[in-house]
């Protein structure tokens, strides 16, 4: 959210920025993209070229 305004009538106070900074939450997940396949298919990782099926679970 940023509000940049110029006072009417050509005010010399032409930089009155008020900007809310977003909350900084640092996230970490074990289920990012390839981890998503991990969850879905019971596999640990999905290195496509080097073998996505090397460490898959069996029961789905």
């Amino acid at each position: 959210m940023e509000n940049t305004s110029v006072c009417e009538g050509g005010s010399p106070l032409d930089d009155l920025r008020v900007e809310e900074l977003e909350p900084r939450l640092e996230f970490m997940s074990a289920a990012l993209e390839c981890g998503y396949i991990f969850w879905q298919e019971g596999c640990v990782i999905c290195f496509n070229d080097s073998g996505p099926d090397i460490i898959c679970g069996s029961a789905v």
Partner: protein
Amino acid sequence: MCANPSTSTALPYGRATVDPSDRQQSYVLEASNGSCIRLSSTAYLVLVGIDGGATAEEVARDLTRRLGRAVTAEHVEAAYTQVRKQVDTITERVRPKPFGLWFRVRLLPVAVVDRVSRRLSPLLRPPVAVPLALLCAVAAMSALADTTSRAKLVDPGGSFLPLLGLLIFSMFAHELGHASASSRYGTPARDIGFGLYLVYPVFYNDVTAAWRLTRRQRLVIDLAGVFFQFLVAGSYLLIYHLTGVQAFYLAAVTIFFLGLVVLLPIFKFDGYWLLSDLLGVPNLSSQIRRVGAHVRDRLTRRSDARLPWPGWVSAAVIAYGAFTVVFVFFFVLRLALVVPDLAADYPARVSGLFRDLALPPHRPAAGRLASVLGPTYILLGVSLATVTMVVRGIRAMRPHGGDDS
């Protein structure tokens, strides 16, 4: 949480301090509701002057001297009304929750995080951190490139729970990395918790206090999570080589891989904050709309106004905006394709789990937990996202609505 007590100025609604990271001189105001607000130098002087008890004439004289142009009391009064209104709007409402964090629960209280992170922060001293980082990089490259070892790993269904435990520990270490870096620079610790972000089950650490640090310090905080996680992965790799227990090897490889993925500037994982701090552009995600409007105006020749950043930063923000739009499109498309199948299979997956538990040996079959937990999180995330979007849409359509905090 974002103001430095040693240099800050008290205001009726919070404390303000110099923002050491902005290219132009500006100030960061910590509002009493926990929000952080960046003020331009002029906005800050007007606010502090009037709220500090000075008259409009006195502030006008001060600004005339500082700016080198005539400022009248009327200018100051108009500016104060405008700035104060904007600040009040932000400070008088509930602090906005991060978008997409549908729910969260605290796991480690502030006192524990503070104590542990202060003890771990020496790991971030350059003479210690640089050699360790190099070691981790070598270990990560060798582990990720070692297809021979991975090829020997087949069906670790039985390793699921140990693996999950090792991954969860590494994620705690990741969050402690952020907290330790934050502690190193004297910003207060916040809790570590667990939540559901978009469709991802996540651990989180609130480092909003980092807004008052320099960009370089914030970059260290951004990278410290992956650094700590890689330290854990390196330890796992060592344990695997000493004991031969495969779960440690699987965990190490997974952590190295996830550590690289999390550095992509997608959504609001570490790469997002890293890019934001590298570019010196706060609120990066909300700049996409601004960049889009700018590109549209330039193409239609409606305006030739420039973006407020150096050329290379503007180019990077435009590239980031384009990348994000494409990424989110494919992300949503993929979810749209996958979710109906997941929802259709879900009852069978859950009943399979119950069947396993009801019949001897009364434990889940290999891979069963993974096949239920993953879809549970995804369906939960999609459901919560849908409900939240609908609620926000309804609020936005109401008269005086639109506060989507």
